[in-house]
């Protein structure tokens, strides 16, 4: 359980991830703030409390693997990696720019990034392969894959879901950023997902449902997933797209649009409690 100062420090990291997301996308004049803001708390807990990773030894064979399957949330991941010490925070300002390695979508080659992603639906399968390798090598690392709810439309996800279940991959954990919005609108309008918990459970996964902005709940669910030994665990994290920036919250427009002008930019930072 996370309490007191520990809880607050994680919340502060999540806030910083959000601030960087706004700064990076505004500076790049492009990018995906909505889904980055919704996953900020999850990434803060993962990188600062859960994942066994060490910026000094990013290639340690025993490290946990994290894959951001929803690779358009790259600003949030890059910010989390920089804050965790994988590379200098100053580099974040290069996001999406010609002289930077910080590709628009998550790019392997950036320290701490395990796999390039951005075409939706593929990260869970990559996680299956990494989990199988860990088992063969008798390494007890975990593989955590963050999914978007829009990408649950992809058949590849459900194929990989079956595979993880068949091979009883207890070292594989998926966490779904259930923000209920995809590019064209609301998930339940574009392609209804219905009762995801029931669907995933029927695929043979252990399912936990939480509030994806409550860092205590995120922490507890991942701890439970880490100790579950019968098969893969799927954490449904209910979130709000654009969380923390009032005009972006629940607004499909900001899936792939940064603050549109200086006024919006200042408002976003102010909402996030950032002094200008």
């Amino acid at each position: 359980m996370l309490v007191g100062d520990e809880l607050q420090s994680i919340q502060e990291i999540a806030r910083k991830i959000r601030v960087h997301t706004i700064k990076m996308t505004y500076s790049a004049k492009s990018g995906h703030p909505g889904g980055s803001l919704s996953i900020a708390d999850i990434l803060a807990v993962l990188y600062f409390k859960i994942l066994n990773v060490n910026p000094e030894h990013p290639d340690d064979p025993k490290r946990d693997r994290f894959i951001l399957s929803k690779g358009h949330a790259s600003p949030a991941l890059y910010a989390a990696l920089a804050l965790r010490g994988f590379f200098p925070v100053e580099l974040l300002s290069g996001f999406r720019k010609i002289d930077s390695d910080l590709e628009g979508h998550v790019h392997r080659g950036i320290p701490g990034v395990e796999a390039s992603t951005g075409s939706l639906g593929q990260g869970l399968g990559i996680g299956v392969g990494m989990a199988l390798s860990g088992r063969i090598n008798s390494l007890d690392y975990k593989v955590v894959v963050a999914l978007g709810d829009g990408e649950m439309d992809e058949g590849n996800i459900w194929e990989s879901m079956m595979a993880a279940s068949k091979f009883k991959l207890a070292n594989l954990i998926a966490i779904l950023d259930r923000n209920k919005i995809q590019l064209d609108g609301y998930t339940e309008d574009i392609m209804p997902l219905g009762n995801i918990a029931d669907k995933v459970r029927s695929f043979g996964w252990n399912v936990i449902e939480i509030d994806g902005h409550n860092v205590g709940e995120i922490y507890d669910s991942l701890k439970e997933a880490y100790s579950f030994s019968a098969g893969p665990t799927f954490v449904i994290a209910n979130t709000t797209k654009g969380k923390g920036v009032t005009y972006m919250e629940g607004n499909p427009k900001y899936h792939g649009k940064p603050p549109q002008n200086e006024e919006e930019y200042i408002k976003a930072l102010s909402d996030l409690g950032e002094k200008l």
Partner: protein
Amino acid sequence: MNWKIESLRDAYSRTLIDLGHLDERVMVFDADLSSSTKTWRFGKEFPERFFNMGISEQSMVTAAAGAALSGKVVFASTFAVFLSRAYEQIRQSICYNRANVKFVTTHAGITVGEDGATHQMIEDVGIMSGLPVMSVVVPADSVETVSMLYFLHDKTDGPFYVRLSREKFPVINDDDYEFRLGHSTTLRDGSDLTIFSYGATVSLSLQASEILASRGVDARVINMSSIKPLDSDAVIKASVDTGRIITVEEHSIINGLGSRVAEVLSENKPSRLVRMGMRDEFGKSGHSWELFDYFHIGVDDIVKTSEKLMKEV
């Protein structure tokens, strides 16, 4: 010609097991076709390193990527026509990640035979060649299959596409043949024209060259088993030495070897070129070797095309 006939798929499964003994990193995936691709034999020998992903190519390809990114040397197999379902996974998860995955597909081309057009993959070389980072190689017989697989395992660490067939092929290479990436093999030298080919049509080209020789036409026959990277020097040299070039493939003439050779000729040393292959059409059911005649890429067609070319230029 007195060739023995051998299965490329058997050579593949035999080599897989050898590599599995040599290297514990070797891991194999299949998509419910292991009985046909013959990867099941590796699975029998190394059950802990063999994974049948069911009829789900996208799942297979992405898992192969994950395994390779964890340090494994991955072989992944299915029929050539079905792998293309996961084209975009190959693009993003394999090639862009530079994952060490060797796709070894079987049942490519029209030599699938009776199963017909739905199963006859005739555009895979083009699809795979277009991918950055991907290399494309096609063995002409069992000997080359073995040598190629060892080369890929021992000397490369990026993604490859290896195209195998259902049909058994005549063994045209000597036992000491060694595959080299980016190099071709001149199987018969000649001064009048050059026939470039790969896979099943190499033995057909050789047979045609014997007939042509008896009629006074001296044909050079080159096995272009390394399609990407291509042995451009061999193409330019042929253009200088013989002029008159023919490409033969059980693949579309669009984006296949014919297109690649045309590009090299145009940019370097143009010569008259005739591309023999599938002419923007689907295959059909029939016996493999009958289909070569049906689609006008059989031995007689190569002979006729050569003689016509001799008269024209």
